[in-house]
């Protein structure tokens, strides 16, 4: 089926991008690779028929957060491969830890598959009208609190970015 092929292609792109992020030593290439991964994840959101989240994901992650990362890397002039190596023991430990964690996660979530609904999935659930209704009826308080969080984050970033803190 076409959707399955699209799923596997997008998954391969996402995992390849994540591997470049972990193992390439140039931070600029890391940022570009993680943008590739984010676009692949946005494709997954489209595949799951959640168009609103796909658009927000591209705008917020690829458009805002990663541009901020790239901006900081270029402003700090870090676009060279000057990063020192960790010890081999730490590297092997990191890879083994990651692999074991992956197995644990898959086994832990595997039983959730049996409870998934097979039929009568609402195709309009991920559209903006339906999501907006849920957001403003059931999650109104968290929505307002997140605006306070943004204000605090903005003040904190400005305060930390000042030249001297008295």
């Amino acid at each position, binding site marked *: 089926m076409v959707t399955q092929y699209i799923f596997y292609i997008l998954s391969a792109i996402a995992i390849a991008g*994540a591997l470049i992020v972990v193992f390439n030593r140039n931070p600029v290439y890391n940022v570009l690779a993680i943008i590739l991964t984010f676009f692949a994840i946005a494709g997954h959101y489209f595949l799951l028929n959640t168009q609103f989240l796909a658009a927000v994901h591209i705008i917020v992650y690829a458009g805002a957060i990663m541009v901020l990362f790239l901006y*900081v890397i270029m402003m700090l002039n870090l676009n060279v491969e000057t*990063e020192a190596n960790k010890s081999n023991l730490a590297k092997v430990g990191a890879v083994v830890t990651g692999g074991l964690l992956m197995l644990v996660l898959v086994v832990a979530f595997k039983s959730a598959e049996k409870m998934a609904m097979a039929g009568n999935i609402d195709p309009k659930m991920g559209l903006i009208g339906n999501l907006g209704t849920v957001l403003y009826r059931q*999650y109104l308080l968290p929505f307002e609190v997140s605006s306070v969080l943004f204000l605090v984050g903005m003040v904190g970033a400005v305060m930390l*970015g000042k030249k001297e803190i008295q």
Partner: protein
Amino acid sequence: MNNLQSQMIVEGVPLLHYIWLSAILFSLGVMGVLYRRNAIVIFMCIELMLNAVNLLLVAFSRFYNDAGGQVFVFFIMAVAAAEVAVGLAILMMIFRNTQSTDIDFLNRLKF
């Protein structure tokens, strides 16, 4: 027609494959945090982990037919944006004081 197409899209890929993909992305993020020494790259790996969790939340919300999961992803994105703004400001301050973003220079809190 629309309904049929959507069911095919969801049923074409089993939920287990989404679980595998998210687990692989999450553990690659953990691996990156332990593997790298550049603080900005470690930050990026944290974003990778957040995105793996987001993907799994959307997949579960789709398969369980519950819109709450997608609203939760929306909030996670908002928190991630605020976190990145503050975190990068802290990194800039560290760079201004130590002329480096290597985490092994910042070992005064080390046990």
